[in-house]
């Protein structure tokens, strides 16, 4: 795992005497590795044949999945969207959300993605962190919303945050 660097002069490569010693050791290890690699050449070819076989099988399964999806996807998705749009129109979703908002939390933006389910992306602003926490808690405990995932939070005076959630239709 490479470690980040926030120095103002940017990343640099430190090469010291210790590094050179390690380089020499690495060269020795490399020569040993080349020797053993020659012996492992047969294993590699055998593994290559196995990989080819698995790839062929994977492609076949992928082709079957695509064919299956092509058969059922358009009708299924369209009917789910039609049902969701009728059952959970944007005004209703907005009204349900507003009941959860504490007084000093406001909704800045709301994106509704009608697909097989109804996914929401919210941008909210809260005067205090505690109010934002309360909104998250209400959202999480509400039976109408599932899969609550808080996103980026910016805390410069007030809290501005993104939250993703799914809306649970009342008919389900």
């Amino acid at each position: 795992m490479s470690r980040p660097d926030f120095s103002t002069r940017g990343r640099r490569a430190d090469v010291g005497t210790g590094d050179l010693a390690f380089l020499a050791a690495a060269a020795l290890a490399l020569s040993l590795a080349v020797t053993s690699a020659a012996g492992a050449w047969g294993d590699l070819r055998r593994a290559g044949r196995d990989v080819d076989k698995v790839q062929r099988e994977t492609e076949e399964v992928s082709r079957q999945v695509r064919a299956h999806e092509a058969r059922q996807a358009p009708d299924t998705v369209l009917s789910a969207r039609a049902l969701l749009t009728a059952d959970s129109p944007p005004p209703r979703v907005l009204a349900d959300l507003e009941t959860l908002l504490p007084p000093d939390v406001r909704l800045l933006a709301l994106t509704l993605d009608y697909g097989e389910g109804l996914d929401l992306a919210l941008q909210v602003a809260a005067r205090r962190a505690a109010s934002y926490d309360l909104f998250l808690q209400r959202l999480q405990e509400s039976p109408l919303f599932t899969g609550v995932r808080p996103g980026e939070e910016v805390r410069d005076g007030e809290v501005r945050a993104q939250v993703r959630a799914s809306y649970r239709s009342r008919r389900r």
Partner: protein
Amino acid sequence: MRGAAGRPRRVSPRGPRAYNESCVRPFRGELTVAFDASGVSGAVVSRGLRGPRLRSFARASLEPGALLPQPLDENAHRPEEVGAALARVLEGLAAGRGPVSLVLPDGVARIGLVEVPAGVPPDQYVRFRWAQGLPYPSGEAIVDVLPLGGGRAVAAAVRRGVAQEYEAVAARAGLSPGRVDLAPLAALSALLRDPPAEAAGVDVILGDAAYCLAASHGGALRVLRNRRRDADGGEAGRLRREVDRTAAFAGNGTGPLRVRVVGPGARHLIGELLRSGRAAGPGWETDGGGLPVEAAELAWLGGALG
């Protein structure tokens, strides 16, 4: 004795002291200096065949208000006090003279979990995504990431002026600043290398001014939250509720949950969590002496020893 170019290597006529200063000291280990509101800490770590080893450690306290970690404006309100504390730390360390790793405190950076599209350099993607949301011009941001694999990364942005301020403090103390890390990222990198045995866990990384909550489930980091601290009497209770909420967001149901805590106040919070029935413990411990404080109270130590 011969050098790399075949010429005889000459020992300085000024005697062994100068030789030790120029040739031996650089091999004494890597020096890491960490800043936070309550004090300046330093550690020298040497690396050998048996892994990294803490050779020496020193810490000097700061009076309240001397250093206030925050992302926008100056952090060192009394830079001479911070410099004096750093000088006291250096006196107590057997440090070499190579580049020094600086660890900036939690609270100076914007930190978040990002999913980077394939084929895009992570730092460029983060700069693009965060350009509108940063409270300063994006050109002033130093952006870097801690890669997690699978196209996910922990990203952080530090204002250039803030990083320069800490580098300047180190330079005034005679140090040559090298890599600059963030305490929460240093801690997170160490904690992620050593995931808990349980399927789900929450890591609490405390700083003097801010803290991070990182929830993992199934071996993958799911949620990362960064908050300012509010160290009044009710903070432990609030942190406890935050841990539960973060674990819930990460998709942990009712299964066993392990909470690991590092950073200043870790021992106190672990006690509170244990009293409320949660399985909590320090993120790391030292197997021997050598540290005047508990290892878990130093959030950056795991990264320095990584």
